[in-house]
């Protein structure tokens, strides 16, 4: 009985694994194709396409599992201890903002708006940690730059996530019995 209910409410382990794999591949692609021509260190946040789509498709706790696994596995594969700290600080703040906004009744924001706020929240979380790490608040002076870059990357990621959501709803309709209404 218990397992039957779990089956109904959450996506299969296989689907979550597919999404986690998507997120990891996005991370690898991003490492290979740097996007930081204008501001070194700024990232496009391709993996966020998958996280954002997961928020719309899966229950929040399952989307959170995908995010945490993605941060952990990326850090083990490519990063240092510090990079886990940065990706978690930005990732969790961004996740919290996006889950809250995507879950609002009546969907006041489209995935693009949710993505923009998520990207800005991500950058804000990272600059907070960066300030603490170098021990100087003057790093905050770059917040305007990071807000603008968050808006730009947020729009791009939002458009991509919308595309992914359309595909997911078209090709795997049987998986999501009651897909959350979007757009």
């Amino acid at each position, binding site marked *: 009985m218990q397992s039957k209910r779990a089956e109904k409410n959450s996506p299969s382990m296989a689907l979550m694994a597919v999404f986690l794999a998507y997120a990891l591949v996005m991370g690898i692609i991003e490492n290979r194709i740097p996007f*930081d021509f*204008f*501001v*070194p*260190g*700024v990232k496009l946040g391709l993996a966020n396409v998958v996280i954002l789509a997961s928020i719309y498709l899966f229950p929040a706790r399952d989307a959170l599992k995908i995010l945490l696994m993605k941060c952990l596995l990326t850090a083990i594969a490519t990063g*240092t201890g*510090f*990079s886990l700290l*940065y990706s978690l600080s930005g990732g969790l703040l961004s996740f919290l903002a996006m889950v809250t906004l995507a879950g609002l009744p009546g969907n*006041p*924001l*489209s995935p*693009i*708006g949710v993505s*923009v*706020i998520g990207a*800005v929240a991500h950058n804000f979380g990272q*600059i907070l940690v*960066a300030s603490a*790490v*170098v*021990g*100087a608040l*003057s*790093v905050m*002076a*770059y*917040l*305007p*730059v*990071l*807000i*603008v870059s*968050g*808006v730009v990357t947020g*729009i791009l990621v*939002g458009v991509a996530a919308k595309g992914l959501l359309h595909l997911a709803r078209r090709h795997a309709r049987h998986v999501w019995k009651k897909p959350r209404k979007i757009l």
Partner: protein
Amino acid sequence: MNRRDILIIATFLLFAGVWGAVKLVAGFGDARDAEAVAEISVAGKIVDILPMSGEERDVSIVGALGPLTVRVGSGTAYVAASSCPSQDCVRAGKITSRGQCVACLPNRALIRVKGGATANANSEVDAIAE
């Protein structure tokens, strides 16, 4: 993208624009007599302060991860070499004007310009680098 999305995007851009403009205007009133210096700190502790005028010279500092070479002189300061894996601090390039900074997060190092003239509106953006 609906109207509320556009409103949120516009709010963010307006906020960033106003902040940038205020910073720029605030800079004009300040005295320019002080000589520009590069202040180097690691984990919040100042390890060196160097005038940015004069010939370029290298300063070796010990970061949290390993050594870091900062080159200061000819009105600029930049990270010439770093022991960090990402090298974003090296790629961040030169800083010249007051208020600008380059950070190397793995090394917990921060180089910032104090005193001297402020940045122009069209000055290049430098970076927070991991």
